[in-house]
């Protein structure tokens, strides 16, 4: 009867460990999907486009991009993460990535990193006069 108890304990431990492995894989998948750079690119591009649409000249907007910069660093991307071409704003956190969204405000918009501090934490968006 002594051998039976040992077998029961080992089986239960293996059973619990396998369950924990399953749960861990599930949680890791959900977290990785929710924090993917593609989602952040889309979210930021749309937010910035709507901010520009809502703003009137002359307006300066400062947005915190620390999370985005850390993601870009993790993906070995060292260039500007937010830039504008005509009336389309693009957020890029990876070399082979990026999300673009257009805005309808026909103003002269400038987007550049805030270099007033030693480390770049913010990006500045200025809505200048209408075109």
């Amino acid at each position, binding site marked *: 009867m002594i051998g039976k108890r040992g077998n029961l304990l080992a*089986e239960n431990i293996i059973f619990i460990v396998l369950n924990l492995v399953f749960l861990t894989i599930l949680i890791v998948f959900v977290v990785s999907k929710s924090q993917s750079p593609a989602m952040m690119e889309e979210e930021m591009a749309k937010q910035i486009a709507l901010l520009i649409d809502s703003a009137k000249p002359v307006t300066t907007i400062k947005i915190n991009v620390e999370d985005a910069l850390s993601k870009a660093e993790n993906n070995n991307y060292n260039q500007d993460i937010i830039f504008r071409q005509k009336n389309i704003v693009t957020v890029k956190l990876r070399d082979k990535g990026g999300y673009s969204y257009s805005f309808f405000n026909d103003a002269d918009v400038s987007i550049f990193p805030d270099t007033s501090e030693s480390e770049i934490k913010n990006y500045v968006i200025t809505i200048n006069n209408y075109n």
Partner: protein
Amino acid sequence: MKILRNKTGADKILSVYWFAMLFVIASGIFAIVYVFYLHPFDVREIETAVLTGRIAECVSTQGIFDDNFLSDDSGKNFISKECHLNFNSEFDKIQYYVEIEIYDFKAFESSSNPMKKISDGNENLKADCELQKTKNNNLKLQSKCSEKSIYSIDKKNVPYIIKILSVVRKTEKNAV
């Protein structure tokens, strides 16, 4: 005295079913999460609201109606030029449509014909607004519309009712 046999074997068979059930549940959760995060954010309702607000401010600045909207020069592209709007986008076709109808306040109740009607953008998008009134969930891929009516007076204290319709399509970036 009965000897209990094969209890351990029965437990091993049950654990196979247990893991099979876990696998089915995990697959379901994977599929739900994948589909959820695959769907883009739909910001068109906010965008149409912002567009409507911009045009309202343009037509009636601080409550004073801009008479230029009643002039004969207010033809095609008048709204985008007057209100500083750029309807170009990352798509080939124009994704916006705006329409302004100006009514005489005193005749508004009796007459449904506006004094002046001006539009700008892609006129084909207006039909989507009529479809949306049916509240059919299969029509999520249609454009988003926003309609607003405002009251304004001009410099001579003549009152007007102004109806503004804004439509934003951009379906590929918001609904697909």
